């Protein structure tokens, strides 16, 4: 009897762990309801609810490209999120915490278009309209909004862009900006230099104050403003080991860079991590990438994932001359990878990690596990010959 009960329990546990794995790796953007509800609960402490979900489809293949999820709080419109199905980016690409969704205003515009079309004021050639919509070419999702608006008007109504602008008196941008009192706490606790009173303990890895750190925008083949923090962080970690005496066996690892070039090193790291330069990268991929890179360059590399991300973890490894890859993110979905190269600990309790942020060529600071961030995950990187 005991055996049977144990077998039953084991089977249930196996099913549970397999389903857990499937859930966790299923790509968050494919679970719209889950993402939307989770995000709403985070923002409104559970007192808001989904009121409407719009599916956005590609005009050519009818493939689902995204969703607009609107929600209400006590029956009052309380904002929206736009979820993208594009691989390699966070699913929430736009949000507002109050007001109607973008779609609501598009509907209004569509009414105006339909009204104008019925009076013969606009063209009925949708291709002509879309090809002339150069303002929107760089903004695929917004183009899709318009395509969607055209589609739900039975695919027959459209307008030349200039006619569209005349009819509505404003572009969809002007309308949308009225609805965008958005906020994100992500940058709140990133600081140039802490300025607390009282004495402090300082720790730095070798080279922390001497490195001319690599900056995201200076890397090859990067579109300005796009996220390439992952490979930039790896390249900065390599630069530290290549230029300063961090090797356990003494000295620097002079052959670690590709052709002694930061740019070529970065490009190789991008190749290994499998991401285009314009994309952010997941930490698990980054960690495995730097291991592969180090081995490829003739060195060994071990990484330690801090399970609890304790202050003592960071202090211990900085003191041991080890750089730490750090992943941070806010509840709004903004995320960043950077390299910890030191710490400041005030006697009054203030704690800061010194980082190579990828935004500046010199180290700056970040409060330790601030409330503005809901992820603060460290991965110590040790490369040696």
């Amino acid at each position, binding site marked *: 009897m005991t*055996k049977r009960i144990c*077998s039953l329990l084991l089977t249930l546990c196996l099913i549970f762990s397999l389903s857990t794995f499937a859930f966790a790796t299923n790509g968050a953007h494919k679970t719209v309801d889950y993402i939307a509800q989770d995000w709403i609960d985070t923002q409104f402490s559970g007192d808001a609810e989904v009121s409407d979900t719009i599916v956005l489809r590609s005009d050519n293949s009818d493939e689902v490209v995204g969703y607009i999820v609107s929600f209400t709080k006590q029956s009052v419109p309380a904002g929206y999120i736009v979820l993208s199905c594009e691989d390699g980016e966070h699913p929430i690409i736009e949000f507002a915490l109050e007001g109607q969704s973008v779609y609501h205003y598009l509907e209004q515009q569509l009414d105006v278009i339909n009204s104008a079309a019925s009076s013969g004021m606009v063209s009925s050639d949708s291709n002509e309209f879309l090809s002339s919509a150069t303002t929107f070419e760089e903004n695929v999702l917004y183009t899709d909004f318009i395509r969607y608006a055209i589609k739900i008007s039975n695919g027959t109504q459209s307008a030349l862009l200039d006619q569209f602008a005349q009819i509505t008196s404003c572009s969809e*941008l002007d309308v949308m900006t009225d609805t965008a009192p958005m906020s994100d706490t*992500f940058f709140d606790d990133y600081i140039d230099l802490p300025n607390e009173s009282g004495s402090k303990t300082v720790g730095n890895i070798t080279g922390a104050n001497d490195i001319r750190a690599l900056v995201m925008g200076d890397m090859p083949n990067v579109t300005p403003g796009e996220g390439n923090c992952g490979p930039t962080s790896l390249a900065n970690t390599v630069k530290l080991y290549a230029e300063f005496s961090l090797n356990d066996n003494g000295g620097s690892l002079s052959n670690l860079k590709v052709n002694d070039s930061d740019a070529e090193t970065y490009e190789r790291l991008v190749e290994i991590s499998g991401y285009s330069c314009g994309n952010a990268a997941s930490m698990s991929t980054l960690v495995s990438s730097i291991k592969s890179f180090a081995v490829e360059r003739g060195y060994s590399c071990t990484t330690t994932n801090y399970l609890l991300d304790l202050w003592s973890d960071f202090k211990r490894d900085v003191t041991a001359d080890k750089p730490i890859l750090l992943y941070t993110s806010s509840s709004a979905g903004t995320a960043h990878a950077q390299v910890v190269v030191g710490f400041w600990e005030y006697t009054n309790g203030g704690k800061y990690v010194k980082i190579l942020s990828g935004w500046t060529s010199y180290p700056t600071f970040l409060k330790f596990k601030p409330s503005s961030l809901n992820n603060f995950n460290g991965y110590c990187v040790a490369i040696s010959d």
Partner: protein
Amino acid sequence: MKKKIVPVGFFVLIVVLGALILFVTNRHSGTSAIPFVKVNDVIYVYDSTGYKVEELPETYSVIGEVIGNAASASKAQNGYASGLKVGEKIYQTSVKTDEVFVYTSLFSGDGTYRYVKFTSE
């Protein structure tokens, strides 16, 4: 006695493994952060030297303000920014259009406002 210990051990192991898998796989990426603002269809990124001044340089004047936050530069509309607050003013001079200054408290740590440079190159 041994017969009981083995299944219970497996039970604990599987629960621990399941929790560990969930814990590890939850550590994933988001939209990569970089401070920027889009003005007149140009993306201006936080200057890598961290250049800031308390007084606005001569010849600079207001050309707009931040009107919203954008997660991705490629999808941002004019006036949208990352790392900046809605309402913060943007300044530019006609003789140097590859940079703008934004009056912002970004990275100050204590809310102090100053003019922070963003560059397009």
